[in-house]
């Protein structure tokens, strides 16, 4: 554990001195943070037309208000809460997508900087190395998720109808933000680190790692179309599957990590 902590500390210190690496994550998160409020609050205010006046939204609002916790909201508040909750996976995934740059460069970056050989000459194990590299990308991603989620709820409290922000603090939202999000992030970042240890180009790792984002992007679209809802049991089931997938990815990562090839064949 000490070795993992040492290497994670190094990666975080490196990131602090090179914050530009995290800019894509911050930018993506900012867009994901603002976009739902533009749809739910800014556009209706600019046009002077309430969302609850739209017949399309009325059906969704009625369905949504049948859920516990949403019954006390007025029609406009229910629609705002529905939109903000549907967009939540986007907010959670944005920092992950951004952290992909860090994860993708993790092993190949060490190789290119010629820092990998002395590192491998220490008693560090492959598991410790890969775990440290994944955590070095995951922790900033989770920190950004926490900040974004705080801003999301804070913005909802400030500009949305009364009571909407309480919906965002419900178990469903919290499970998506702090269980599904980190586990999906872990899978994506592990995949990126795995690929980073097999390729000599960080961009390949980034692109392949991003594949994990796609199914979760699909969840967002499915939610918006109403064909799928991330209820607490559904979220927990997906989280359990992701947990297994994460363990499998670590096992595969260790099996694929070939110190010799990395040292002798990469140029």
């Amino acid at each position, binding site marked *: 554990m000490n070795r993992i902590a040492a290497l994670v500390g190094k990666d975080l210190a490196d990131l602090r001195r090179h914050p530009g690496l995290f800019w894509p994550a911050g930018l993506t998160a900012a867009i994901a943070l603002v976009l739902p409020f533009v749809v739910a609050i800014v556009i209706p205010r600019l046009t002077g037309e309430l969302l609850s006046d739209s017949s399309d939204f009325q059906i969704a609002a009625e369905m949504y208000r049948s859920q516990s916790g949403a019954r006390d909201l007025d029609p406009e508040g229910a629609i705002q809460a529905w939109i903000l909750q549907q967009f939540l996976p986007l907010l959670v995934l944005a920092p992950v997508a951004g952290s992909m740059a860090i994860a993708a460069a993790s092993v190949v970056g060490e190789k290119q900087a010629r820092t990998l050989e*002395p*590192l491998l000459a220490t008693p560090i194990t492959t598991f410790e190395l890969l775990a440290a590299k994944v955590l070095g990308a995951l922790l900033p991603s989770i920190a950004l998720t926490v900040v974004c989620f705080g801003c999301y709820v804070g913005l909802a409290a400030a500009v949305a109808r009364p009571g909407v922000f309480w919906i965002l603090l419900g178990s469903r939202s919290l499970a998506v933000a702090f269980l599904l999000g980190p586990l999906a992030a872990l899978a994506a970042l592990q995949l990126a680190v795995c690929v980073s240890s097999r390729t000599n180009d960080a961009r390949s790792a980034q692109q392949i790692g991003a594949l994990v984002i796609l199914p979760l992007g699909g969840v967002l679209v499915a939610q918006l179309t109403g064909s799928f809802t991330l209820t607490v049991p559904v979220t927990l089931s997906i989280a359990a599957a992701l947990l297994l997938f994460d363990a499998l990815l670590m096992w595969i990562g260790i099996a694929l990590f070939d110190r010799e090839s990395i040292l002798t064949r990469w140029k």
Partner: protein
Amino acid sequence: MSSIRGNVSPLIRADHLTRTFGARVAVEDLSLEVGGGEILALLGPNGAGKTTTLRMLAGLIAPTAGAVSVHGETMDRSTAARLRGHIGLLTEAPGLWERLTVRENLLVYARLQGLDAPATRVERALDLFEIRDRAGDLAAELSKGLKQRVALARTLLHNPDILLLDEPTSGLDPESARDVRELVVRLREEGRAVLLSTHHLDEVDRIATRVAVLSTRLIAADTPAALRGQLFGVRVRITVTGDAQMYVSALERIGVPDVRVVDNVMSIDLSQIPADIPAVVRALVGAGAEIEAVTPEQPPLEDVYLRLLSDRLATQHEPRA
């Protein structure tokens, strides 16, 4: 078989190491050992297998055949991580994390090595390597010489008794290179086993106790003086007053066959004659010569190295019977 054995009990030993990469043979049947208080210099052209040898000895890559043992224990998958604790590997590039300070770089490695009180060990290393005044500087801001010194400090943090140094003075200015050489000598004096890969032959001449010349296989291995003797004989240079040619016949009378003369200097090969230096001096004085100086003649190590390599090349191209 290519082999080199030292005179002291080995701390690290390679037995018949062979490493291939696909069809290419990088190192073939190499045996060597290095004991405490020794500096073994590994010489060879680019691609001779020096770095591959060091990586095998450090447990970073496995040999295709043969074995490495450290303190008498064979290195394999189950022992490599533990045995690496006895070894300090200085890679060809310093390999510092550029956006971390010198202190941070060392601290991460102290923790990766699992040292007790890592911060104390780092502070001690900063003093030992005289880099305390740069401890807070980013590695990116250091000169190449200072980076190398920090890399050496990192290599020695866990106090290894075996040091594998891959071209430690490569690209350094003369002053920095001298600092590194002095440090390497100090390490030898502390009783550590040092295996040094280098292209700097003058450096080898100054600090190495033994030399191994590698070109995929081990071509030759011995002390620098012994290698000179084997290839060029043991020559002495005698400076006399006046024309040295006048005294050649006096030397031929005592059986010296190959006397080379330039002006007032004669050069003879002691390995080819029955007489010793006093007998030579007596013969010259008896012939009326006034001797100004008698000095051993040392061909540069570069000549030894190039001769060994050209002999190897010639052997390779000899038609097979």
